[in-house]
């Protein structure tokens, strides 16, 4: 048994080391939506349990952080199962079962818009397999050939005799049958659920205030921890005068970590208040003098460096520049950003008798599990992680710093469950930030305005350098070059260079990742090319995308829906951009007006998306709206700055988030699924937004935006 177990155990650890994915497992927050039930049921396979009353439990192994996949994934199973959708309940998987059952649920990671596209096939197959077993069990009972039976809406029907059996009546017997070796999946034309809007299963609990989130976990005898981390990244705790709070009301313990101090008390407010009164001395380390300016200069050196790795080199750009009728150059900049999920980082842990139990809002449950085991110094088999809903994730919750801290604190008060909650200030100042990136472009155009040569130098922090350094080949981080190294445009002479410039600031995956800043730079520069060529920016792109029908398709869809080229109201101007990412394709058109005083009015936003297949159109539309709010927040105001090695922003008063009054009122999601592939939906719509907006601003003002946020460029939203 042990040897058979080893490969999956290794896989478990590998998966755990990879950040940015998975999640989930049955958890025991009171009244939680996904609570595991002990009610009897027949397990058809790892994904499907059917109860005698026909309730169908579909297991969910990813993280629900708002994107709606806890409804979309069960729809995929139910489509093939042919059950009654109204009787579907979901149940989270727990990591101890995942480990015990040889990773029966595949990846539990949630990130990179992968939940649907990576699991759609095995989920549909699980549904189809269970359906075939139910059909076989009914046929056996009736003693008829299986080919005479159909499954429909939770019932098996024997066509010739019109006899019927409910799923719940045959499930027990069916679960004992051998699963069929092969099943045929439905033709998309026959889908009944996929592609039609369904109400999300999690919404009733979310409008009644049910305790679904990590922060809501409540255990008997639980203590609460607040934490202060060294304000300078990579710094250390020197000393803390914890005798100052001895005997304070509610104090349980002061826990010293290498780079942090935690106060454990009988409620969180007391813990946090005591923490604020504690005199703490930090050793800032070598980075205590760093500032935004010094880091920017450090990263920018990558643009000047005479010797950097080359990612692509096709044709001869230098010769083409020499022969060009026109050459243009530009330099772009994007700042650090904080994810700012509304639920701050938190994790609840209990260390007792060589076992660890964890309750965590995590995007990577298996990494949480492995982190807990390593921190407590116990084998993987002695750990369980129960999953909760996430109050936003956006990539932040794939990292496991909060898990490590919670387990370390719990170990210091062994036998007492502890809920660690970061204050907003800690959350703002200890993120894995979206990387600061600079890019320099040079392009050559011939006399007819055709693009003949393009050179791109990217100087950026690398996320992979921190999480998967083995994926950086010969100094080129293709992940950091997303949208650049794979640009869809046809250009005969192309050179792409990459300078990795990692400062002391930790960087991480933030919604759309490098496709949040790289498209801003690429697509604004394409706009510069079009204007230099004297061509319409839409037509200029069309000409370069002739070999890329999917990119062309969304570009055309956005142009058509926005009425590109048609007359506009006085003062209104349009901008356009296109960007594929996360397996899908998106294009956007913005209509804006800008007053002489820099008052920016976003009059209309059109976003066309081709994700191949759309599972739940209403959720897909919600993701477009979500990307608009998240993306525009970054473009308009988003900037994390540093001074003395530490982040200057601390809360929402100085890290501004879009409010309702600021949300554009006219947003159109144009879904154009072209079939034949499965792409992501939670991130791609964000990619073309920044450049489409900035290109519209250029059309309105003649001012080219090459540095974000817009609040630093004399522009103000009205």
């Amino acid at each position: 048994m042990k040897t058979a177990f080893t490969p999956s155990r290794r896989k478990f650890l590998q998966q755990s080391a990879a950040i940015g994915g998975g999640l989930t497992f049955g958890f025991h927050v009171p009244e939680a939506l996904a609570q595991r039930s002990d009610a009897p049921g027949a397990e058809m396979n790892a994904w499907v349990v059917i109860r005698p009353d026909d309730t169908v439990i579909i297991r969910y192994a990813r993280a629900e952080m708002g994107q709606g996949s806890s409804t979309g994934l069960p729809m995929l199973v139910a489509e093939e199962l042919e059950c009654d959708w109204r009787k579907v309940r979901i149940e989270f998987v727990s990591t101890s079962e995942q480990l015990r059952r040889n990773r029966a649920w595949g990846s539990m990671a949630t990130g990179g818009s992968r939940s649907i596209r990576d699991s759609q096939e095995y989920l549909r197959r699980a549904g189809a397999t269970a359906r075939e077993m139910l059909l076989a069990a009914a046929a056996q009972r009736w003693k008829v050939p299986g080919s005479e039976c159909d499954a429909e809406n939770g019932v098996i029907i024997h066509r010739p005799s019109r006899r019927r059996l409910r799923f719940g009546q045959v499930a027990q017997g069916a679960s004992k049958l051998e699963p069929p070796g092969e099943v045929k999946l439905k033709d998309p034309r026959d889908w009944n659920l996929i592609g039609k809007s369904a109400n999300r299963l999690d919404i009733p609990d979310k409008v009644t205030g049910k305790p679904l989130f990590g922060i809501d976990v409540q255990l008997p005898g639980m203590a609460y921890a607040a934490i202060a981390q060294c304000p300078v990244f990579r710094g250390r705790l020197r000393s803390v005068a914890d005798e100052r709070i001895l005997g304070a009301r509610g104090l349980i313990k002061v826990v010293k970590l290498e780079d942090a101090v935690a106060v454990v008390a009988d409620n969180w407010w007391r813990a946090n208040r005591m923490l604020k009164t504690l005199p703490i001395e930090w050793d800032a380390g070598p980075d205590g003098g760093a500032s935004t300016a010094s880091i920017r200069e450090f990263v920018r050196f990558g643009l000047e460096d005479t010797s950097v790795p080359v990612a692509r080199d096709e044709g001869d750009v230098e010769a083409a520049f020499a022969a060009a009728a026109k050459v243009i150059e530009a330099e772009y900049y994007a700042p650090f950003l904080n994810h700012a999920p509304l639920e701050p980082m938190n994790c609840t842990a209990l260390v007792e008798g060589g076992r660890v139990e964890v309750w965590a809002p995590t995007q990577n449950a298996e990494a949480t599990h492995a982190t807990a085991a390593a921190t407590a110094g116990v084998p993987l088999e002695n750990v369980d992680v129960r999953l909760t809903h996430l109050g936003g994730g956006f990539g932040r919750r794939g990292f496991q710093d909060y898990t490590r801290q919670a387990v370390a604190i719990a170990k210091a008060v062994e036998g007492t469950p502890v809920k660690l909650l970061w204050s907003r200030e800690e959350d703002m100042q200890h993120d894995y930030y979206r990387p600061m990136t600079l890019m320099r472009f040079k392009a050559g155009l011939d006399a007819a305005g055709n693009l003949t040569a393009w050179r791109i130098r990217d100087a950026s922090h690398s996320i992979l350098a921190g999480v998967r350094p083995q994926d950086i080949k010969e100094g080129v981080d293709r992940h950091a070059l997303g949208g650049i190294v794979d640009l869809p445009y046809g250009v005969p002479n192309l050179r792409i260079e990459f300078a990795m410039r990692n400062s002391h600031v930790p960087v991480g995956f933030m919604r759309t990742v490098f496709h949040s800043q790289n498209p801003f730079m690429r697509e604004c520069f394409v706009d510069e090319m079009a204007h230099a060529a004297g061509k319409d920016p839409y037509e200029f792109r069309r000409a370069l995308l002739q070999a890329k029908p999917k990119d062309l398709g969304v570009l055309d869809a956005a142009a058509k829906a926005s009425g590109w080229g048609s007359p506009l109201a006085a003062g209104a101007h349009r901008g356009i951009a296109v960007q594929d990412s996360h397996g899908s394709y998106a294009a956007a058109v913005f209509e804006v007006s800008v007053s002489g005083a820099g008052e920016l009015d976003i009059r209309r936003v059109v976003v066309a998306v081709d994700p191949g297949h759309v599972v739940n159109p209403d959720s897909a539309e919600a993701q477009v709206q979500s990307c608009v709010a998240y993306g525009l927040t970054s473009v308009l105001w988003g900037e994390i700055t540093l001074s003395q090695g530490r982040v200057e922003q601390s809360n929402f008063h100085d890290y501004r988030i879009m409010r309702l009054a600021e949300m554009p009122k006219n947003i159109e999601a144009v879904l154009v699924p072209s079939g034949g592939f499965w792409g992501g939906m939670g991130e791609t719509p964000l990619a073309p937004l920044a450049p489409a907006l900035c290109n519209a601003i250029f059309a309105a003002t003649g001012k080219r935006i090459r540095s974000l946020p817009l609040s630093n460029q004399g522009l103000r939203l009205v």
Partner: protein
Amino acid sequence: MIEFTVNGRKRSADVEPEMPLLWVLRDVLDVKGPKYGCGIAQCGACTVHLNGEPVRSCSVPASAAAGQNVLTIEGLAQRGRMHPVQKAWIDHQVPQCGYCQSGQIMAAVALLKKNPNPSDRDIDAAMTNLCRCGTYARIRTAIHAAAQSMKPAKA
């Protein structure tokens, strides 16, 4: 000892007078609907009603609630029936992650109580709670829908 009414029930808590109402509700009384998001009255995730008025409970000291009536999302349904705002939130599929939605709903209920037929401008002014998932367009639609559904039937 501070005594007050939470969702129609008398409750008491042995806490410091300056302890914010949010933490009394969450950590002492196990009322988890109001959420912590910022602690400085910026985000509104902690919105509850104090004597019918929407307040940001992270910035209201427990002493200010003494003897008063507190209503949280948990107390919104009446006799097992959801409030029209909650129903509109389901009809229009408003929540995404859902973390801010208790506060959003409490703010919307307070708005409609004062102004049964709010304009877009009224909604802009009243609904200042942050939503990081960007559910704003649907919040606006759902408030208008709830306003319609709450109109007294015509005679």
